[in-house]
């Protein structure tokens, strides 16, 4: 087993893009995606314009091309699959080239927006647009403990690997599933402790 961790770039220093209010940034990103998706397919100029804007954003926010390319490649398998099916058996009504361009532009837009906006700001925007409190609390808690639990899973894996010999192939799934089950048990025990801590700090 390997716990594989999607990269997230927090960006260096202060720049114009990072200083923009999150509402504006996310709003613009959403608008760009909306227009790109809904526009009829043969709008070469629009695609070039969006690409130019994204390029500008990349330069200003000093996010490396390599990082962007890596993220894009990581997220592309589904896109590749569908585009390939579409290119080989063009049964859909949409040209596969348009499909590829559209989805990569949208992906780049979100990657740039997400990596120039701290998640806590995104969460604040969600609260501002009246997402129910139960949902935002859950999202905030998930974001807080995401990394903790992933570390815990990795620690448990290491502990098991150091104590048992490499498990036989047939029992490997069993061992991994036990780790996952134990992770749930620990998560729910942690949730109880968190509840007590929240109450102690006057949550309601």
């Amino acid at each position: 087993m390997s716990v594989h961790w999607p990269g997230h770039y927090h960006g260096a220093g202060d720049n114009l893009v990072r200083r923009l209010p999150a509402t504006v940034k996310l709003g613009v990103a959403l608008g760009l995606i909306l227009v790109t998706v809904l526009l009829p397919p043969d709008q070469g100029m629009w695609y070039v314009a969006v690409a130019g804007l994204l390029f500008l954003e990349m330069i200003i926010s000093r996010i490396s091309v390599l990082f962007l390319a890596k993220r894009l490649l990581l997220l592309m398998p589904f896109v590749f699959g569908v585009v390939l099916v579409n290119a080989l058996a063009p049964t859909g009504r949409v040209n596969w080239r348009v499909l590829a361009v559209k989805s990569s532009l949208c992906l780049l837009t979100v990657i740039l927006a997400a990596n120039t906006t701290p998640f806590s700001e995104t969460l604040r925007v969600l609260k501002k647009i009246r997402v129910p409190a139960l949902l935002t609390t859950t999202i905030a808690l998930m974001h807080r403990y995401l990394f903790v639990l992933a570390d815990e899973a990795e620690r448990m894996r290491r502990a098991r690997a150091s104590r048992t010999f490499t498990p036989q192939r047939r029992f490997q799934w069993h061992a991994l599933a036990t780790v996952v089950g134990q992770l749930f048990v620990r998560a729910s025990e942690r949730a109880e402790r968190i509840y007590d801590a929240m109450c102690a700090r006057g949550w309601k």
Partner: protein
Amino acid sequence: MHIPDGFIDGKTAATAAVISFASVGLALRQVRRELPPRKVPLLGLSAAFLFAAQMVNFPVAGGTSGHLVGGALVAALLGPGAAVVVVTTVLIVQCFLFQDGGVLALGANIFNMAIVNSVAGYAIYRLVSRVLPGTRGRLTAIAFAGWSATVLAAICCAGQLAWSGTIAWSAAFPAMTVVHMLIGIGEGVISALVLLAVERARPDLLSAVQKDGGSGRVGGFLGYGLLAVLGIAIFIAPFACSWPDGLDSVAEKFGFVHKTLQPMLTAPVPDYQMPGIHWAVGATAVAGSVGTLIVFAGAMLLGRWLSSKTEKR
């Protein structure tokens, strides 16, 4: 199964978003009403757990590996309403933090993976574990529910892609169904193993859901359960009733056929092409029914094997 932006057109995205919005709202209401305040942090922690669990790779033959999707498992562990909220949270964070799944496609992704997967998974889990009692029955139930929920979600995904005109139903349905019938086997086995591990370590965590999951919850469950069925009907029915050209007849009915067909078609062969593909849709349906029976038998064997192994210890 995370649909990226650009693969789903406006009407599909809007329809899916409306259904998802309503369902998540109903699920939130049910959770707020029925979940004791003690358990509120558990939702966030379960979402973090699900995310971490999804990153654990299970080795499959030939160097490839699979991972858990988990809607059915979380529904069995926490109940359906909580599962909808938890998986929705995971999808939102995956979308905004890791860009996995599109922003406009978020509604569709929530519908497939949070609502259909959890609701169908939970319904099947309850149904089977009522017929087959005991640990053995529960393990059989979760294995079968994990598999069916995965396949059903994939079929919905295929329906949305086809409705958007990205891929024709005759190509999307067989491809998605066959691939996910295989992936689903892994999902079912992992779900059963994880449920067994939790049941061994902390049986009390499960018994809480089993107890109040029975009667009092049906009212709350019904609302978004019906919405899930409605969504499935919208996304799949147009193709299922007149398979070869369901999409075109729907397009004609709504009057956007001329709008969509002119500019973007560069396809050398239009809609009607190899007869093999139409045959494939029918064959997939037949194979699907046979496969479902085989998988159910397999789930029963797995349940018996795992529970007998536990008793021996």
